[in-house]
């Protein structure tokens, strides 16, 4: 992929001259390059592992995946010999706090109008580190200190200058995002408008959704009766209405078995799409979760505890859920678990009884399903976006390193690059989010 960088360097002087700018643009658009990664061990995830496989990419899209005999390499393709390497789909983190993400403030427990989009710092080193961990798509969200702390944002971790360069547009033109909710201890506070008990927490949430049902009715009536008049929008209720209409998924933090069932009751009552997050005590109510057909985004920690709700956390959650057919994905909850070790979750899952296939899905395809993006990402299939990770070995081995991360055909992380390596391994400067220009002593 070195040649691609050379082209960029060669084009740089042109970009400086407005005179040549348009022609440079045109040549880039007409140039759709084809890449063939050959002789790799490939896990497409949607189909069995391929030894000595070929991954063929055209521009930002996967053209073909298969054995070296099965995939014909076009004459114009640039061939990368990936002997000894393992290629897996780009990793999807369904729950992350990278990019200095922030949501609701302490003024009230339910704030659906708040968009975390408005808080993201794409220059925060946590995003570089996530790319170094092989993460290509992440669901960035605010915390669990509120019953509803705002709208999350699904990002492709492209190398962008502003957050808009990283967002995902849906077919209706809106951005891809969900809504963060929480129950249990974290969203209970002993002050003001915040709930002091679990019963009050549930009542506050139910009332808001009842308000949203009324809002939907009112809006529908308005559109039918006075379509020419502008409708008085309520930002908060509009977001809840989107949930009721099934347009947005609720990403629900929950730990204890009783809190998990409270979420399932809310889902039942209001009919919304929900993904259960963390679910420390999932193993206690795995049958009920499977019965409700609700996906789970789980975390692995090196020990239980740290708070009452996580006392009964067990590594077997992944196995207990996946064997009951529950769509099960992992998340980093970065900074709880560092994005650079996301792969390690699959290994802990296998240790505690998950199949290797389900564990790999947990890093990729299952997450894509939870974000409703499985048409375009999550597996290596023709027509899907060319998001993939090149590894030094077996995805389940601790000794395996992420060598390269590619998003939509573009390399966004390369361990050979000294700056990328600094973010991958740490070192002086790796934690400096706002490096002074003209600085420093460590490069």
């Amino acid at each position, binding site marked *: 992929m070195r040649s691609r960088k050379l082209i960029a360097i060669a084009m740089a002087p042109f970009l400086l001259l407005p005179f040549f700018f348009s022609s440079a643009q045109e040549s880039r658009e007409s140039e759709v390059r084809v890449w063939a990664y050959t002789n790799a061990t490939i896990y497409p995830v949607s189909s069995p592992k391929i030894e000595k496989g070929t991954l063929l990419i055209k521009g930002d899209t996967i053209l073909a995946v298969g054995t070296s005999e099965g995939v014909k390499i076009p004459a114009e393709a640039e061939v990368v010999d990936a002997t000894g390497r393992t290629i897996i789909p780009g990793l999807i983190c369904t729950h992350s706090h990278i990019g200095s993400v922030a949501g609701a403030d302490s003024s009230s427990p339910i704030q659906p109008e708040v968009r975390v989009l408005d808080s993201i710092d794409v220059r925060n080193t946590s995003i570089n*580190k996530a790319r170094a961990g092989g993460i290509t798509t992440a669901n960035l969200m605010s915390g669990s200190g509120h019953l509803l702390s705002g709208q999350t944002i699904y990002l492709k971790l492209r190398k962008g200058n502003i957050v808009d360069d990283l967002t995902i547009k849906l077919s209706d033109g809106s951005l891809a995002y969900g809504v963060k909710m929480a129950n249990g201890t974290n969203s209970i506070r002993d002050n003001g408008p915040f709930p002091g008990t679990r019963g009050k927490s549930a009542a506050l949430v139910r009332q808001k959704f009842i308000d949203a049902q009324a809002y939907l009715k009112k809006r529908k009536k308005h559109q039918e009766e006075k379509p020419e008049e502008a409708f008085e929008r309520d930002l908060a209720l509009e977001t809840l209405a989107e949930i009721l209409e099934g347009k947005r998924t609720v990403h629900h933090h929950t730990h204890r078995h009783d809190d998990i069932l409270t979420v399932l009751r809310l889902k039942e009552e209001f009919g919304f799409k929900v993904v259960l997050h963390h679910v420390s005590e999932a193993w206690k109510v795995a049958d009920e979760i499977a019965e409700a057909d609700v996906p789970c985004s789980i975390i692995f*920690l*090196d*020990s*239980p*505890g*740290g*708070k*009452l709700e*996580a*006392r009964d956390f067990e590594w077997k959650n992944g196995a207990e859920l996946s064997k009951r057919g529950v769509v099960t994905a992992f998340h980093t909850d970065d*900074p*709880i678990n*560092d994005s*650079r*070790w996301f792969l*390690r979750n699959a*290994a*802990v899952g*296998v*240790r505690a009884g998950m199949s290797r296939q389900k564990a790999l899905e947990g890093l990729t395809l299952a997450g894509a399903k939870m974000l409703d993006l499985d048409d375009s990402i999550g597996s290596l299939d023709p027509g899907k976006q060319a998001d993939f990770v090149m590894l030094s070995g077996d995805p*389940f*081995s*601790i*000794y*395996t*390193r992420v060598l390269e991360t590619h998003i939509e055909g573009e390399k966004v992380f390369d361990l050979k690059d000294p700056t990328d390596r600094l973010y991958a*391994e*740490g*070192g*002086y*400067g*790796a*934690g*400096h989010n706002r490096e002074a220009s003209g600085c420093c002593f460590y490069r």
Partner: protein
Amino acid sequence: MPVIIAKLPAAASTANFSPIYTMFKIILALSFAAVAHGQLAVKAGLLFTMTGDLKPIKNGIVLCGENGKIRAVGPASKIKIPAGYQTLAAKVAMPGIIDAHSTVGLSGILNLPKHDQEQLETSSPIQPELRAVDAYNGRDPLVKWLRDLGVTTVHTGHAPGALMSGQLMVVKTNVSSITSMKDTLVPASAVASTLGAKALSKSPGTRAKAIAMLRAELMKGQSRRLKMEEAKDDKEKDAPAPNLRLDVLVDILNKKTPLLINAQRHQDIAAALRLQEEFGFDLILDGAAEAYLLLEEIKAAGVPVMVHPTMGRPYGDLENMTFTLAAKLHKADIPFAFQSGYETYVPKTRVVHFEAAMAAAYGLPQEVALAACTIQPAEILGLDKKIGSLEKGKHADLALFDGDPLETTTHTTHVIIDGEVVSSSAK
């Protein structure tokens, strides 16, 4: 699961109530009691003894004697398992894992202040007189959690977060209550000290003030030591009355108790080295996230490092931490050991060989990673005659695995302390 527990000398299903059978049962019970206190053979496909060049023995055997000590170690070709020994087989066996610095037993699973959080007293910044033995709860579930995973010894006690937060101790993970100092391996193994942001509040509010306060305290220790020596030499003079705090400081200055200084940034590491040079105590550097900037200085000072958890979070004073630190210390020939450290939230404890594993992924040779959670911490703690490697006469503490102990997918199948199987949960 490749672990086979060899047939025990009994056929308990024989329903026979004759007096002879009753007698047999008594003998059987006695022989079981003997088995519980040793007479255990461990057969391992790969046996890491953690001696010599650290390379494992293929098809090795360890015999655990009745006294809880190792009776023999070597290749299966040279060691005969005596009659009456129970045999455990594993793919891999190694010495029981030693956590070089933890707060387990003081910082409990529930994380509830005044209930199970005994690791940091904030009433005053300097309190070296606080003893770990008075705070340790060996029945906390996290102690069992670590034991089931293969950790047999912890260096635990007061946490980082104050200029001098208190003492640490070395204890095995099968000890549930400290009924006497003999229940520990070392009752006062170090005094924990912290430099840098974590130890700053209203006062000390700056790094310079923190060092000034520490120096003043150590000087008080010096003048007390002088008084004690004068009293020893001059019978006319009375020895000073016991003073809990000053007596600990004298122990530090006399190199009886090391000072374990948690310092992450390079300025703080340099300050710790300056203090050591001025007062001549035994220094153990703790954390040392930016030690890679001062390798020569640390090497010259002859100071060992208890390196921060590899999976520690890169924020605050650790913002420039690197996963390659252990590999760099190894290359610079600086002695180091892995620690689980102190966690304020989740996970409430880290697991020391998981931290070693992550360092192995970032350039540290596998056997060095294993040594840094067995024989290396034993040496730094001055316990290498007793624990940390599998050698005749040392404690029969072992961890058994169904694969490479550093691989995440590997299970710990059995854990043995003093010749006794304390866990067979295959976690």
